[in-house]
């Protein structure tokens, strides 16, 4: 099988896709033309830049470049998860940061050290794309879990206070909301497990096949990826709901009403 390398001139033709999307936006007066144009340029610049960065890392073979890249990706993921919160509270960056770090690093360590047994462990060809996939999904799970938990505690405040008044700890008082937040965070990755291979061929698998891998090999990778995503999201969102208790309650199990008041 021969891999067809894409030239920039061929890529220009692909811009027609964006132009057609802009035409649809214009016809229906969606006002998305500018966003599409900016998005396309950003995607071009960001992906081109990362392409060169990755190429540099592959050539240099230095572990600290890889770690630096991972740190940048991690910080971006946490910032994005914070930005997705409908209400910003002090301590959210730490809560989401610890959760995403624990969920992602545990999973990636097992994938790199136990399943793939990559030598050296920092091989950017594996570590960067796998970490990116895990971080992206952990980020989404963490953001969903925290948003849902805060919204539920706000809406069900009387129920939470009734439980506290009966002698529940803060963790016990919000247990029903915690369960709902975990489900909200985990359902997308479970849905994806259900339809993968039927409704869509995931990006990594498609990429491997295009790059010349045998489909069965690509499938094995993809299976590992969807399983690790499910685990990373579960661990991350569990950490979020556990740590988030201190965002909403004092150590004396009092609701921080100011954390809920800023909801509007």
């Amino acid at each position, binding site marked *: 099988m021969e891999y067809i390398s894409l030239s920039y001139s061929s890529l220009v033709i692909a811009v027609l896709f964006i132009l057609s999307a802009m035409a649809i936006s214009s016809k229906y007066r969606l006002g998305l033309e500018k966003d599409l144009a900016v998005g396309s340029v950003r995607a071009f610049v960001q992906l081109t830049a990362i392409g060169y960065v990755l190429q540099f890392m592959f050539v240099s073979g230095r572990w600290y470049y890889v770690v630096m890249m991972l740190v940048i990706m991690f910080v971006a993921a946490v910032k994005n998860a914070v930005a997705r919160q409908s209400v910003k509270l002090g301590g959210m960056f730490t809560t989401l940061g610890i959760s995403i770090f624990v969920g992602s690093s545990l999973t990636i360590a097992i994938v790199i050290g136990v399943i793939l047994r990559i030598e050296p462990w920092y091989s950017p060809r594996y570590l960067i794309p796998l970490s990116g996939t895990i971080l992206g999904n952990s980020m989404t799970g963490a953001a969903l879990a925290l948003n849902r938990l805060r919204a539920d505690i706000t809406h069900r405040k*009387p*129920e939470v*206070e*009734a*439980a*506290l*008044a*009966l*002698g*529940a*700890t803060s963790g*016990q008082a919000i247990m*029903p909301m915690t369960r709902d937040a975990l489900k909200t965070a985990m359902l997308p990755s479970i849905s994806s497990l259900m339809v993968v291979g039927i409704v869509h061929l995931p990006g990594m698998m498609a990429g491997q096949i295009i790059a010349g891998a045998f489909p069965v090999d690509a499938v094995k990778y993809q299976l590992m990826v969807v399983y690790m995503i499910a685990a990373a999201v579960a661990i991350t969102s569990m950490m979020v709901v556990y740590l988030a208790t201190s965002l909403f309650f*004092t150590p*004396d*199990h*009092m*609701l921080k*009403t*100011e954390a809920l008041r800023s909801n509007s």
Partner: protein
Amino acid sequence: MAKIEFLNVTKTRSIDGQMHNVLGDVSVAVQEGTILAIGGPSGAGKSTMLRLINRLESVTSGRILLDGVDIATVDPIELRRKVGMVFQLPSLFPLTVQENLVYGPKLRGVEPSSLETKVREILGMVDLADLSPERMAGELSVGQQQRVAIARTLMNEPEVLLMDEPTSALDPTTAKSILELVCDIRSKYGMTVLFVSHSLEHSRLVGDRFLLIVDGKVIEESDIEAFFGGPSTELGRKFLAGELR
């Protein structure tokens, strides 16, 4: 049964970015076994008093004593089991009546199956002897739900019962039956009750003593009939005349 004392209690809260005194230097004592009706205009700080006793909120300064012990030194979980609270809305959990009732004891590690007799007894106490404990709480009328909420609090065998406008969401007949229930509970268990209400009639029906709060300050604290017979302050007279709302 327990005695409650407020010693120079102040509670400030941030409202629209500015600090306000919700309660200012409140000192009052509630003798054990007494029903203290607390009245005052909206936003006077009545509900805050109850929330402070239950430590759903903390005092800014001053102390609250329960049987002579500063509640700030007591584990809040233990305190809340001793000091039961009933809210304006029943706030039942979306579970069965039985599950709502055993919620408190279960938190203390009591096996729910050992509580069947007690559940029956407490349901009888709140005039719901005929109600199946397997019914979902959400299916009940608001009046029944409020009774279940009171029953749920009684399952913890509290020494103090805090009632935050428990009748305000009810029709007059149901409200009256809840007031009778409060008097029955005090007679049977002898507990100290703090009863916040907007209704002067309800306060008079249920209370032994009356506490009037306006703008976070204690204006009067007296025998209930003495207050309704003739308040000793100008604000008290205005409140009774319906001029303070």
